[in-house]
């Protein structure tokens, strides 16, 4: 018990010192080809809103996979919420991921279940009592603007609505970090802005938000921290920055 408390304190200290996300000289090489990430360092503090931008093949997806502990770094250290991901055992990964909400370009909803079940699923995983799930799901659905759609099948929803369901699912367990991988990639401009405003609201409530995107318009209009990647390295990292076209 004392050991667990010590670990928790150590993690808190790491977060205070280095942020909720901390990459220290991280490289990732696949078995073939040049390294996807080459000696990158990055620190993201609690409650920040950060855009990660870059061309296809710049290493953004690899970075997200490292943060989700889908991959492990070839060298260097990756810390998320004070966890050294290289030391995390396979068995500990599910519990670790519950700290992170994640949304994808293709929404990744359970298509054979309705909206309510998709969102409730995230709570069932953490063994939330049924009565609490019944209270929480309508509340979060109302927050993302889907109060009346809880019975709908996901394939009956528009792209924007599906992304809102994904957001609701990502947020229902109050994660410290929200990773959004191209969240507007499949949406029209109007819906994209609605989703971005939602992400901003989520950030304002204290959640650290990391958005990987290609959308120059959105990045330039929102004036947030922008980390630009190219060929596996971070080429710029600016507060209130813009989408820099390196070409």
């Amino acid at each position, binding site marked *: 018990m004392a050991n667990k408390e010590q670990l928790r304190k150590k993690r808190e200290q790491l977060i205070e010192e280095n942020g909720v996300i901390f990459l220290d000289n991280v490289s990732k090489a696949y078995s073939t080809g040049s390294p996807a990430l080459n000696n990158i360092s990055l620190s993201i503090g609690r409650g920040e809103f950060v855009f990660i931008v870059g061309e296809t093949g710049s290493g953004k997806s690899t970075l997200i996979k490292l943060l*989700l502990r*889908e991959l492990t770094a070839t060298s260097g250290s990756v810390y998320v919420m004070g966890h050294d991901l290289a030391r995390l055992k396979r068995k500990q990964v*599910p*519990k*670790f*991921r*519950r700290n992170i909400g*994640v949304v994808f370009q293709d929404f*990744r*909803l*359970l298509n*054979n*279940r309705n909206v309510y079940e998709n969102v409730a*699923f*995230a709570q*069932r*995983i*953490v*063994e939330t*009592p*049924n009565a609490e799930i019944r209270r929480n799901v309508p509340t979060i659905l109302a927050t993302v603007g889907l109060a009346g759609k809880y019975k709908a099948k996901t394939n009956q929803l528009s792209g924007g609505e599906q992304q809102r369901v994904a957001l609701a*699912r990502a947020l229902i367990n109050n994660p410290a970090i929200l990773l959004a991988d191209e969240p507007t990639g499949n949406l029209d401009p109007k819906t994209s802005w609605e989703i971005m405003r939602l992400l901003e609201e989520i950030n304002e409530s204290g959640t650290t938000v990391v958005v990987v995107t290609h959308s120059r318009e959105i990045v330039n209009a929102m004036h947030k921290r922008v980390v630009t990647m190219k060929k596996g390295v971070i080429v710029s990292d600016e507060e209130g920055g813009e989408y820099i076209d390196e070409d």
Partner: protein
Amino acid sequence: MKISTLLYTIKQGFANIFRNKWYSLASVATISACLFLFGVFYSLVANFRSIVMRVEEGVALTVFFHYEEGPIGDKCESHTPDQIPTDERLEEIGQMIAKRPEVSKVVFVSDEQAWKDFSKPYGEEYADVFPENPLAGENNYEVYLNDVSMQSALVTWLESIPEVRVVRYSALTADTLSGANLLIAYVSLGIIVILLAVSIFLISNTVAIGISVRSAEINIMKYIGATDFFVRAPFVLEGMIIGLIGAVIPLGLIYSLYEYALEYINGRFTNLSRFFSFLPLEEIFHVLTPVSILVGVGIGFLGSVTTVRKHLRV
């Protein structure tokens, strides 16, 4: 784990069957087809074996003993006086034979009974021609076997008993029957192994394909933070239920078909049923039911466990 989580995973296992009804239907159909073929073949082999065994049960060898000079002057082959068995010794030998594992039944036939049985077909006048029993001293044991392949070993043993004069038997019948028995055993074993292997391959492939098309679903669950157990349990339960349904359907079909076949053959081919009777339904299903259910549920379980494991590494 909380009871509500356990109940949820069980509920999901059942719900998955209906959510993925086409996959469930295809899996059940594959399992049913495989186990139906297996069941039909097993029923045929079991009946064939039982017929051969019944024929075997009818095979008997006869043990004759030394005796003093017969009433019509026949002289028994040379023997010493102590080789002539007393009534007690004859009974003792009978008990010894009955205790042998390859022996199913021993019947004592006295010399009087032997003559009566012999002369019966020729009528009383024929028997009257002989004032004395021509078979006097030919007391014998009819020994029935439960395994004809052991006949020669039994004959060797019987011939080693000092009181035994001669053992009459048909080596050809025993050899033919035990050869047929061996052939059936090998052929049926071979076909059953092939059928089972094909069934296992087809069923596990169907289960694997069904799960693979839902690998995205497994990925999503893992990204959200579901444990391996939470992801796997409903799939495994689903696989086992599909396996169970896939086993019960052919069992029901074979039950009805077998019952109908028995009625048809017994009604239409009465002569056939005089020579041999088919195994009762209970005897066939005593083996077929647990084997089919074990194969169906077992493959459903193993197939889903191994396939889900492949997709859990996210």
